[in-house]
């Protein structure tokens, strides 16, 4: 009996080690990829904006790791880690940022607006609250098709909780008891607007009760807590217990995009526990638990950097989209496409 308990504890400890190491590696990959993309942007080699995930990797990776193949994921703009953990390739990210014709969006859409709907990764429109009901739709369709056991995760920020689309979609999911996990990264600012100008409830998780769904609050700077809470929420949804609202408190450790110096962020927040860098917090935990030593982490870091450099170098050599080869057709039914304007 004692032996069984010890073995169970050992296997739990091994599982905890494995998931933390996997998570940390995706978080690091996301952070390094962000840094590289920001550098490419600063060098003037990229059109449009760059939107970094800095400070949100622990929450994001927890979502990605909690989902299975076959689940649905509608990420927000700071979900680089979650995307990678869900299975998105580095190349998809780099190609979309650089507008490569070989990327999933083929230069027609860019940066964080990317995905592969058929593989369960939904490409966001900018009106982020609008993605939640699309996830509902996939889950609803699966119910009609008698497909069970999958869940859908939609991620938004504190700003999106003020949209009508958020309200309509969460209510809809609750009415239909869909296996939706709605993750709110309360990162204290929607662009420059502080939460005091965004909502008046004590905690966004309190909203869950009004919708008749389960609410969860978590410290978004703590990987261990995020893995546990998000994992539980996903498990509950998968178990048929209806929509789950997860609200993580954290601080965006960058501007809205690289064009934004975030001078409006209250210095007191940066000094508070919310301002901790979740990547460092996770790294310290790994070292403290002796799940890996500093030299192993350094070796992984080198590996990750090499992987990113190779991807960016490859994509920079790829063809840009050609306006003369472009089909300029917005509907799939070719013979119904309006050729009127396309003739010149």
């Amino acid at each position, binding site marked *: 009996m004692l032996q069984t308990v010890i073995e169970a504890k050992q296997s739990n400890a091994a599982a905890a080690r494995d998931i933390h190491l996997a998570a940390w590696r995706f978080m690091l990959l996301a952070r390094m990829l962000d840094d590289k993309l920001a550098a490419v942007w600063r060098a003037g080699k990229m059109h449009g904006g760059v939107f970094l995930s800095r400070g949100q990797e622990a929450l994001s990776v927890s979502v990605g790791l909690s989902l299975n193949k076959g689940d649905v994921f509608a990420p927000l703009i700071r979900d680089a880690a979650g995307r990678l953990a869900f299975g998105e390739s580095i190349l998809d990210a780099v190609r979309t940022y650089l507008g490569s014709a070989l990327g999933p*969006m083929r230069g027609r859409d860019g940066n964080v607006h990317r995905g592969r709907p058929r593989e369960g990764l939904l490409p966001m429109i900018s009106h982020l609250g609008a993605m939640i009901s699309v996830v509902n739709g996939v889950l609803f369709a699966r119910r009609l098709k008698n497909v069970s056991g999958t869940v859908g995760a939609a991620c938004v920020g504190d700003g999106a909780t003020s949209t009508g689309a958020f309200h309509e979609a969460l209510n809809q999911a609750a009415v239909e008891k869909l296996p939706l996990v709605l993750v709110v990264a309360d990162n204290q600012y929607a662009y420059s607007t502080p939460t005091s100008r965004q909502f008046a409830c004590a905690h966004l998780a309190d909203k869950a009760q009004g919708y008749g769904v389960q609410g969860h609050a978590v410290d978004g700077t703590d990987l261990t807590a995020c893995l546990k809470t998000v994992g539980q929420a996903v498990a509950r949804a998968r178990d048929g217990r209806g929509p789950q609202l997860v609200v993580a408190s954290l601080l965006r450790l960058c501007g809205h995009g690289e064009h934004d110096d975030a001078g409006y962020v209250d210095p007191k927040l940066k000094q508070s526990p919310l301002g901790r860098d979740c990547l460092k917090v996770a790294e310290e935990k790994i070292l403290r638990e002796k799940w890996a030593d500093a030299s192993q982490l350094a070796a992984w870091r080198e590996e990750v950097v090499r992987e990113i450099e190779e991807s960016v170098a490859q994509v920079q050599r790829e063809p840009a989209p050609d306006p003369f080869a472009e089909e300029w057709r917005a509907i799939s039914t070719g013979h*119904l496409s309006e050729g009127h304007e396309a003739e010149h």
Partner: protein
Amino acid sequence: MSITYLDAIREAQARALRDDPRVFIYGQDVGAFGGAFKATKNLAREFPGRVLDAPISEDAIVGLAVGAAIEGMRPIIEMQFADFSTTGFNQIVNQAATLYWRTNVPCPITLRLPVGGTSGSGPFHSQCMEAVYAHYPGLIVLTPATVEDAYSMLLEAVALDDPVIFCEHKLLYRHLKAEQLPGEALPVGRARIAREGRDLTMVAYSAMVHEALEAARELSAEGWEIEVVDLRSVKPLDTDTVVASVARTGRLLCVGEAWPWGGVTAEIVSRVSSEGYGLLDAPPQRLNARDTPVPYHPNLWAAHRPTARSVAAAARNLLRQ
């Protein structure tokens, strides 16, 4: 047997549900109640679990349809009134309309919009939205004017791989009757010559086809032969049929129930002017509703929209030129 425009819409949905397991209907009051206009009457009973009431959430209703389409379904959405589609506008024009272009994944959803004025309906239950949606790339916009088209075009809308805005006119729901449902039909994208003539081409769509036909009958008593083109679909727009008609008549009058600024009638005048300038014997004209919200009182409403009388008057002016 007599079948109304509304019956045709109900029967087309029943057939789509029967023939294709991917089809489901989602919208406000469409379930046991059968819809505000009874366009889904008894369908919830005949097709259990596939005709579902939605909360009053147009944004989430359309969003859900897009997600279901991604998952391979073919949702039919009933917007209770076209006017209410404005609260689902973002999902329609930014989500549904952009999906194929952005991702190569088609978005086969059908949005049924009960459009147009009826006496006493006022500013928020009377609007014609076709021009607004036709403006956005990625959408197909259909405007059936007959019982036969209501049936065949709705079936085609469901079968198409693209998002379709299906504008069904409320005034036609119960007034328009046919003997039977059509076996064959013109495909979407082709206009129809509703009446042949040689003196003037009237281009109309939806309920305005019937005002144009009535005006043509009135003018025929005065010796004029008016050709009436029923556009059937406003996007795509069958420019060829319109230009060919103008080639026969030399005169163009476009009639639309929507507001005058921009829109379908302006688009037709623009196309005919640039593609068929030499065919015109007189400046092309158009007649629309007045540039105000749709009024409530029948006297005001009747004077707000084009009617057979005002269409005939506009045609007489054009024929004198």
